[in-house]
């Protein structure tokens, strides 16, 4: 019933226009010189507002953006992003100027004649070649960096961690002493063996399943991703890392943590962002927030997709080794 009420209001607004058009239609339906003048000026007004908005966003919303990369591989990514960001920023500011200024400058007048200008090979060559050159540079740098991140074959003594996505939580397993993960398959899921590890596989015994991801600073980490049910995506925004978890296959991604959690908390950008966050939290009467690295799901996976996260702790290698040594192996847990 209430729905009908809303529909009725919408229709009533529409019908009220019926009366208005009676008056409005007394004017011609085609733009006159006066209209061109008014609309041309409105383009200028809009342009001013649009530029003000863009500049405001660039400055005021800057604090919201992610802090600098917390992984070594992500440095080049930030670099490439900054280059691209400034480039598109400059092009945007120039092109939008012409798009909004020309309608004012060349607004139609009865006595004016448009210029018959149908072609210019020189101009067209310029704006085909100029973007091409810029793109070659961007593509070159981008592909080099992509290769850099995705090629994990030459990593020396990497730490191997398995992340297992399921509706709606993450399980994590470390490869243990032998640095090799035991085989996993959904058919082995039973009781506390929630990751479906094949315990007959020799590399499985020393694997360690944990509740929280700990990473050593400065050592390359290779993540192996699996999924139990639907697609998930393991997104670690602070490390510039993301990879889908696909049922039926193992995907991987690697990076080297650059800052410990403690160091990251002292990062200027993090502090600035947290000030904003905690001001808002205080107004709402919530506890203050302290920065932590996170892994969150970024591929629609069902009802609680919006709450599928796990904390990541980055620490010095010694602390990490101590923590890992305390964790029980699968052989100890699964009898």
């Amino acid at each position, binding site marked *: 019933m209430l729905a009908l009420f809303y529909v009725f209001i919408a229709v009533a607004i529409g019908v009220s226009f019926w009366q208005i058009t009676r008056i409005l239609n007394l004017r011609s339906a085609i*733009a006159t010189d006066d209209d061109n003048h008014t609309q*041309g000026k409105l383009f200028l007004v809009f342009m001013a507002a649009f530029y003000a908005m863009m500049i405001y966003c660039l400055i005021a919303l800057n604090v919201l953006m*992610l802090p600098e990369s917390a992984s070594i591989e992500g440095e080049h990514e930030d670099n490439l992003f900054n280059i691209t960001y400034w480039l598109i920023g400059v092009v945007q500011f120039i092109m939008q100027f012409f798009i909004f200024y*020309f309608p004012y400058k060349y607004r139609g*007048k009865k006595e004016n004649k448009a210029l018959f200008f*149908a072609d210019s090979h020189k101009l067209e060559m310029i704006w085909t070649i100029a973007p091409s050159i810029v793109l070659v540079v961007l593509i070159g740098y981008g592909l080099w960096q992509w290769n850099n991140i995705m090629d994990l074959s030459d990593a020396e003594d990497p730490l191997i961690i398995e992340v297992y996505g399921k509706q709606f939580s993450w399980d994590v397993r470390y490869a243990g002493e032998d640095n090799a993960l035991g085989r996993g398959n959904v058919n082995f899921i039973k009781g506390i063996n929630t990751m479906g590890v094949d315990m007959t596989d020799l590399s499985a015994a020393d694997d360690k399943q944990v509740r929280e991801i700990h990473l050593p600073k400065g050592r390359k980490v290779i993540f192996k991703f699996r999924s139990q049910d639907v697609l998930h995506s393991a997104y670690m925004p602070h490390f510039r890392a993301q990879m889908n978890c696909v049922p039926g296959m193992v995907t991987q991604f690697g990076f080297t943590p650059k800052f410990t959690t403690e160091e990251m908390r002292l990062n200027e950008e993090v502090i600035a962002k947290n000030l904003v*966050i905690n001001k808002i939290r205080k107004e709402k009467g919530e506890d203050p927030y302290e920065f932590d690295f996170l892994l969150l799901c970024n*591929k629609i*996976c069902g009802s609680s997709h919006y709450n599928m996260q796990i904390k990541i702790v980055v620490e010095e290698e010694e602390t990490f080794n101590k923590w890992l040594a305390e964790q029980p192996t699968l052989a100890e847990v699964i009898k």
Partner: protein
Amino acid sequence: MSEHHHKETFVTKYIFSQDHKMISKQFLITGIFMGIIGVFMSMLFRLQIAWPDKSFTIIEAFLGPHQTDGVMSPDIYLALVTIHGTIMVFFVLTAGLSGTFSNLLIPLQIGARDMASGFLNMISYWMFFISSVLMVVSLFVEAGPASAGWTIYPPLSALPQAIPGSGMGMTLWLVSMAIFVASSLIGSLNYIVTIFNLRTKGMKMTRMPLTMWAFFITAIIGVVSFPVLLSAALLLIFDRSFGTSFFLSDIFISGEVLHYQGGSPVLFEHLFWFLGHPEVYIVLLPALGITSEVIATNSRKPIFGYRAMIGSIMAIAFLSTIVWGHHMFISGMNPFLGSVFTFTTLLIAIPSAVKAFNYITTLWKGNLQLNPAMLFSIGLVSTFVTGGLTGLVLGDSALDINVHDTYFVVAHFHLVMGISAIFGMFAGVYHWFPKMYGRMMNKTMGYWHFWITITAAYGVFFPMHFIGLAGLPRRYYTNTNFPLFDDLSDVNVVITLFALLGGLAQLIFLSNFFISIYRGNKATQNPWKSNTLEWTTPVEHIHGNWPGRIPEVHRWAYDYSKVDENGEYIHGEDFVLQTTPLKDGEDPS
């Protein structure tokens, strides 16, 4: 053909009509109706994003069993997002845009009595109608409509255990889309055949208006890529209902291991995006075609670089079929493929840039008639540039890693294909309304509609880039579980306010549209002083379009403001109909 103007009944004239002009109106009205649903849904879920715990009577009123005390459930949130995407991309911007204007303009602009097959054309509309009905019906299924995202990636879309919307709702979605694809294919084949075979005397391919080129190439992309979506949908139906394992493997859900072995969801992603990416251009190219025509006419200037524009359309069409993998950089496919797709993707920037520059040059030194259609076309160029530029970030695999599936993507594609295409559609409606209904739309309301809409569009999507760069994933029911994102809530409120403004502004358009059908000022034969053939037909629609013989074409479509050496208009006015023969000594341009 006017001689056998046989008597038509109400049914043959308004319902099962085979006349392309009537069919185009049917497409438009159905598209508008679906658009109302799609936009309304976005307003509902924007309320949820801005004020997650707040109770709204409007949510209580419309979401019935899927809400408690005016707060929507997470499942229906995902369903709204899914159906909003599906409806806007396919039902509004594919069928509503292409269906309307290809049907209206192809025979009129190339000088044909009707489409090559009027009967198939009618079938195409009615299949679209049936698929629309099914999609609307799916909204009322008990467990809710499809809710796996508009990309319907399995296993989520294949398993009702995974999400309630993947039951009956998903079945209806798939059937509806299968019929939709068939409709679109029949339509596209008809457009291609018509353009190839039914051009009037003198209408060489290189004399066709750019709208024709855009619709022609769009139809070709559609024929190449839509069947792949159909096959993906059919295979998914098999997986869902007949136990096959094309896309599924090794799944443990609701406490049991399912029997599926050996399939791969990545295969589905390939099949989906093989359509999904060209689909972007199926949506966009007709809008750009309309813009070319509207900008040239209202600038009183030839479109700058006609041949380069055709070349760009072709280049975009070709490249669009080999870039689908840029949606899948982090899907787990071989990283080498990622490199290849980065390369082809960034190449698309070149023809796109050429088009944008050519539009701007067309405005330069024109005598701009700022009609509502012209405003929307200029708006399109602006949003196309803004949205297109961020494509350089997303198309680069290395950068995509960190913004993939965040709000940055949402902002990018809404500006570059959503807003741009809808602006093209509005431009088309304002420009050709007199051809469709013999009356004019109201100018003042058109101006209000444009200024509010573009303000709202930028108000929504410009700040959205930044919350994406803050790492906020899309399709989150609420962000309250992440203190990390607390500082984005104010921005989200602003975005929602603009979204509501933009949605409500469409009431201006709707009233203007429907009222003008009955009460608009009577149109003259060629209200915008345009060159193209459709304006040589009488205002009153007749079957067969031209009362006597089909006119012959003597020149291209863009002889605006053509002057002789004394600076006087060669033909006395600032436009020259394509049917006007060349004068002695006049250069054919």
